[in-house]
């Protein structure tokens, strides 16, 4: 789980001067409420999801494999009074993809979702290694 660990390190460092903190816990559900909803303005990074596929199939079965790793991260803030630095937080989170070395694809995206008077930012990081 090196990618999740590296993301946590980068996010912890670069979000330290913002209104959002970073938790090392995974975003499990406690009492039907995800931790990131219960603890607003705290970012949670989920476990890695991996898919290993063949890049090159060889006749001697010495195949070349690639690993696609996806990591989701969540942060929830008050939708009525968003933190003034939310733009900085979002861009910092998106740029955390650059902290992962030795990958051929490094991508990140963010989606927003409202839940009552809260807004949940879901970040998705995608990496491909060979």
């Amino acid at each position, binding site marked *: 789980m090196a990618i999740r660990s590296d993301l946590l390190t980068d996010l912890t460092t670069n979000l330290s001067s913002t209104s959002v903190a970073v938790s090392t816990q995974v975003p499990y559900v406690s009492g039907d409420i995800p931790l990131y909803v219960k603890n607003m303005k705290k970012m949670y990074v989920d476990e890695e999801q991996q898919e290993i596929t063949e890049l090159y199939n060889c006749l*001697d079965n010495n195949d070349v494999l690639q690993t696609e790793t996806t990591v989701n991260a969540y942060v929830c803030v008050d939708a009525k009074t968003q933190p003034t630095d939310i733009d900085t937080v979002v861009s910092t989170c998106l740029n955390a993809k650059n902290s992962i070395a030795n990958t051929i694809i490094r991508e990140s995206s963010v989606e927003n979702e409202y839940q009552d008077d809260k807004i949940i930012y879901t970040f998705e990081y995608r990496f491909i290694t060979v």
Partner: protein
Amino acid sequence: MAIINVSAGNEAVLVLGDSAANANIAGSDGLTVPSMQDITINNSTGVFRFKTLDNTAESAVTTPATNQITLNVVVDDAAFFGTGAGSIDTVVDEGLFGVSKNKTRVFFNAGFNGTDATSKFVSGSGFISGLAPTVNMDSPVWVTPVTIEVDGDYTEGVVS
């Protein structure tokens, strides 16, 4: 009668050497080309066509064949650049790149169904050509086509 299924991973085999003895498919002195993606053994004859007044269709005869083995491989540094020195075979020492640029004659055994006794192979000799290693960020592993321009005819063989 049986189809030849190569999915076991040790069936389609290409062994190169600087002599027919070293290229023996059942031996260990030659270079067994690793990580082949595909291999094609071409035996393409030419055709001479002619017309006669007493025939409603063309006649044809075949002319000597162009023999060529083409393959694509994922580049293995030892196989491509050689091991340097120390083996008893030039192809192993110089690798595919070395014997290509040095225009060294290579002997080959191309196995159809492995190296066990009674397995079929074709053999011959020729020159390595057509190397074009390429890589890009969508496929970040070096791959290259390889062509063996066969000098003369193939010989069909059976592993003893």
